[in-house]
């Protein structure tokens, strides 16, 4: 279809023929019922209000007053600002972020504060006091913790307590040389072993190493197991002397 053209150009003196009239009117009616772009003036300036609201598809809305097509933002994640579609400040919530979207480069240095870190998950006994008199390794009762790790190194150590004397002691009321040892085990695996030996040499007198005490936190190990659940414990033995005495807490945590 194109612009409408007349069928017959009437001139003075013509007899109005029914067929001509019918053709003319038929032509007009047919064209008015089948208008297309050609029938609209170039500068028609069809006002938005003349357009059906159904023109607004997904994400669009037709202004009820002006008829203009407008982007329809949720004003939560996106908004219109200065007639531009923009991501709204604070509009990106966790739900909008893909898994693993945040890589190293996306994190500002020094912005992961302690409060953002997951709990340390340290496992800690209370103060335990126990002793071993035997010459073979045996568990120091109660000095055991179980920790589940993600594969990072694990710090395991003895430490003092908030009350009561703590430390590792050995000695003898009769011997001038005493020897004990302790070891830390991860399940059945020895991950650290420490010997303690003190000897005195004196002439002209009988003398004994009555007591030697070292701080509890002298005993520690940094273990590097794969991710898993492990039980750490302390064992001790008394090679020479009255006893090995331990009074301490055992604590283990996965290093960050």
């Amino acid at each position, binding site marked *: 279809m194109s612009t409408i053209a007349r069928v017959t150009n009437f001139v003075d003196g013509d007899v109005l023929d029914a067929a001509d009239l019918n053709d003319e009117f038929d032509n007009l009616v047919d064209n008015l019922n089948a208008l297309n772009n050609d029938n609209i003036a170039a500068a028609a300036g069809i006002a938005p209000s003349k357009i059906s609201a159904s023109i607004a598809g997904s994400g669009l809305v037709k202004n009820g007053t002006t008829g203009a097509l407008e982007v329809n933002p949720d004003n939560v994640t996106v908004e219109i600002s200065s*007639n*531009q579609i923009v991501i709204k400040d604070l509009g990106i919530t966790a739900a909008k972020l893909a898994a693993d979207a945040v890589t190293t480069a996306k994190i500002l240095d*020094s912005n992961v504060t302690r409060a953002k870190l997951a709990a340390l998950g340290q496992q800690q006994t209370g103060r335990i006091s126990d002793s071993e008199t035997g010459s073979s390794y045996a568990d120091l009762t109660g000095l055991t913790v179980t920790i589940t790790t993600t594969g990072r190194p694990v710090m395991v150590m003895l430490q003092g307590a908030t009350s009561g004397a703590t430390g590792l002691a050995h000695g003898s009321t009769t011997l001038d040389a005493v020897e004990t040892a302790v070891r830390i085990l991860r399940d059945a695996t020895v991950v650290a072993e420490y010997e303690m030996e003190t000897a005195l040499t004196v002439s002209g*007198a009988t003398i004994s190493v009555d007591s030697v005490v070292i701080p509890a*936190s002298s005993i520690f190990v940094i273990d590097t197991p794969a991710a898993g659940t492990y039980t750490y414990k302390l064992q001790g033995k008394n090679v020479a002397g009255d006893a090995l005495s331990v009074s301490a807490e055992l604590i283990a945590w996965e290093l960050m």
Partner: protein
Amino acid sequence: MGQISRATEFANGNPPFADDLNAEMNQIASTGNNLDNDNFVAGANISETKFASTLAGSGFDVANGVLSLNTDDASLETSADALQVRNLGVTAAKLAANAVTTAKILNANVTRAKIATSYQTAVTVADQTITNTSNALVTSLTVTITTTGRPVLLAIYGASIEFSTPLNTSATALKGYEGSVRIARGATNVVNSDLVRMRIRGVGTNYDTQVTDKRPFCHLMVDAVAAGTYTYVVRVSANAPSIGDSASAIIKTGTKLFAMEL
């Protein structure tokens, strides 16, 4: 208004009456002034230039009648005729609080540099000697740290501590020293008494004794404490096991106290 149809079908021999012509012409004129969707052919293909530019509402640009989305080209853009989030377009300002949860962080991508530091240190600048004293405050070995509620690692290190007793030429029974190290959080002992001791026993006979025991001054402690601001101090004891005897401790220059929230 809808599609129109002829009002009168003319036939030869029936000259058109004025009413018939007027009816026909009026209908056409009226329709021409009230065109609606029914008057356009299915494939009318009305071009963009026929619409007023005011059709472009918020979020749109219009050029030569063509509507296009008006993005900021910073956070959003159109690419391949599709609206999309622009690469690097999601800045910190766009992220909601708590938006970055664990699942959003690629494993092993929180490197050390990303973690804020949270430690304090103090160091002794002169040797400090104490004799026959319990829980003497170590000068300069004080740190104050504000925590978020995670455990605090406390460490003493960096130099030696030397315990000693003077020469005793008529010793009997117990001789030597008994020391202890305490780390206190304010008025609360964190490590009440991490003992350090060298004690010898003579049996029945006078003997000469003099003890010198220099050892690393190294202690570790984890203090599980609620969020807050805490001041930690170090106290050292040096005593003799027998009344009338003497024992001393020298805390060496360079001894450090380190406190870090884990």
